[in-house]
């Protein structure tokens, strides 16, 4: 298969599967949160309520496409598709096994961070163009939080890059497959870097405990306040997709990606991704949210210096022990 065909076929497959999982996870989250709160969740539509998704999608499609008065109608319409677009394009560089990957880029990790960083714009547009103070406040908070946590995210994602001496995802995974997963060895930097990366991913995706941009008790629904129907659906889907892709990236660069005994690589990668994805739900329904000032203090005073230090420690480790020690 030529690289062109390879990229085409796997790009198609990966994007389709990820979107499907993201949509399915909405049902899963409803079920899961219900169980956490001693409820049943959706039960009526289909076995265990799994067809609830189809019902919701059909309902959303039949809603009116509302655009509020004095809203900037062009920007208002453009924002939701762009959130999905930017979020999904990160998926192109994630390898799911030796073969199942759309684009194995030389600057893979950097590409992921660069394109992932653009997601703040459609979110901000959605809030600003709504002409609603809740939406705009939510958007301002979302962008401030998103850019603040981008820094520790970038620096903690650099620890695997230093340890593997490569920015290519498949190189990072092969080094882990030959030696140990970075989350296990080297003992300190790998694990702490993973924790920082995970925290920052939660913050970027606006998940609890970092969901102050859509704190429903004060901001109604944050940036999505004025959206109805499928545009709301797209914004919702982008959020779940973002969480899923962040889990996949963490699984690849810290948990050895496709590396694992007994089963084929693809199974391991999917298992690790879904396990991290599940952890995010678990955290969501277990914790409460941070205040804005706590959020910023955590980022600038703790995560940033710590991740800087980790990069230095990882460099020293590579210097004295070599790659893959």
């Amino acid at each position, binding site marked *: 298969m030529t690289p062109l065909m390879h990229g085409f076929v796997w790009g198609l497959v990966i994007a389709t599967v990820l979107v499907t999982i993201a949509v399915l996870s909405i049902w899963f989250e409803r079920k899961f949160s219900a169980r956490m709160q001693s409820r049943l969740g959706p039960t009526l539509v289909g076995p265990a309520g799994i067809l609830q998704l189809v019902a919701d999608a059909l309902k959303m499609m039949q809603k009116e496409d509302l655009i509020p008065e004095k809203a900037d109608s062009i*920007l208002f319409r453009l924002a939701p598709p762009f959130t999905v677009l930017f979020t999904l394009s990160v998926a192109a560089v994630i390898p799911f096994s030796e073969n199942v990957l759309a684009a194995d880029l*030389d*600057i893979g990790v950097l590409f992921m961070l*660069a394109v992932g960083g*653009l997601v703040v*714009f459609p979110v901000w547009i959605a809030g600003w163009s709504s002409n609603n103070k809740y939406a705009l406040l939510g958007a*301002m908070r979302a962008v401030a939080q998103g*850019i603040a946590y981008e820094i520790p995210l970038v620096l903690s994602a650099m620890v695997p890059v230093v340890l593997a001496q490569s*920015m290519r995802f498949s190189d990072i995974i092969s080094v882990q497959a030959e030696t140990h997963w970075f989350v296990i060895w080297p003992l300190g930097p790998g694990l702490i870097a993973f924790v920082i990366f995970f925290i920052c991913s939660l913050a970027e995706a606006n998940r609890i405990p970092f969901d102050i941009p859509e704190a429903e008790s004060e901001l109604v629904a944050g940036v999505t306040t004025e959206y109805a129907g499928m545009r709301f659906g797209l914004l919702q889907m982008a959020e779940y997709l973002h969480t899923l892709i962040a889990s996949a990236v963490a699984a690849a660069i810290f948990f050895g990606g496709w590396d694992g005994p007994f089963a084929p690589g693809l199974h391991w990668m999917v298992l690790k991704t879904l396990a991290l994805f599940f952890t995010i739900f678990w955290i969501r329904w277990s914790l409460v949210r941070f205040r804005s000032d706590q959020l910023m203090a955590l980022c600038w005073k703790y995560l940033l210096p710590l991740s800087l230090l980790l990069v230095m420690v990882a460099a020293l480790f590579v210097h004295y022990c070599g790659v893959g020690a």
Partner: protein
Amino acid sequence: MTAETILFYLFGGLAVISALGMVLNTRNTVASVLSLVVTMVSLGAVYLLLEAYLVAAFQIMVYGGAIVVLFLFVVMLLNLSTDEFPPSKQRLIKSAFVIAGVAILAQILIALGHDPLFATPPEAVPEGYGGYRQVGILLYTDYVLLVEMASLLLLAAIVGALILAKRKID
């Protein structure tokens, strides 16, 4: 025409159109900041097509991401309305820029016709050129002094921003 050429014209055109959109749109500051994002990202794509992968990623990350967010927040901080810039003055500035733009365009066209640098087709780049390995090694051996100076510049930026912002609060 190869796919590369088509993509080049697509992104190049997008960059020019959104740049014009940014400059000519005086009604809506936020929309013009957002068209700057489109310009920056399309420029990143053009770098990519030129096989400057590292520069492309940096372009999208720093110019497309960081700097435009800063512009957005400055716009939200100032929230200038149109009364503060009377339209008559704007027209003068605009026409000055148009004249300057036309002059630069003419210069480029003349250069394209005469300069042998533009007339001959460029040489093929060697393998791995513009990748992070070359850039990294050059930056931290030959140009290491400049890198350290950049760090001082960043320090100045932090201190300056803090002093300006604090003065506004107090």
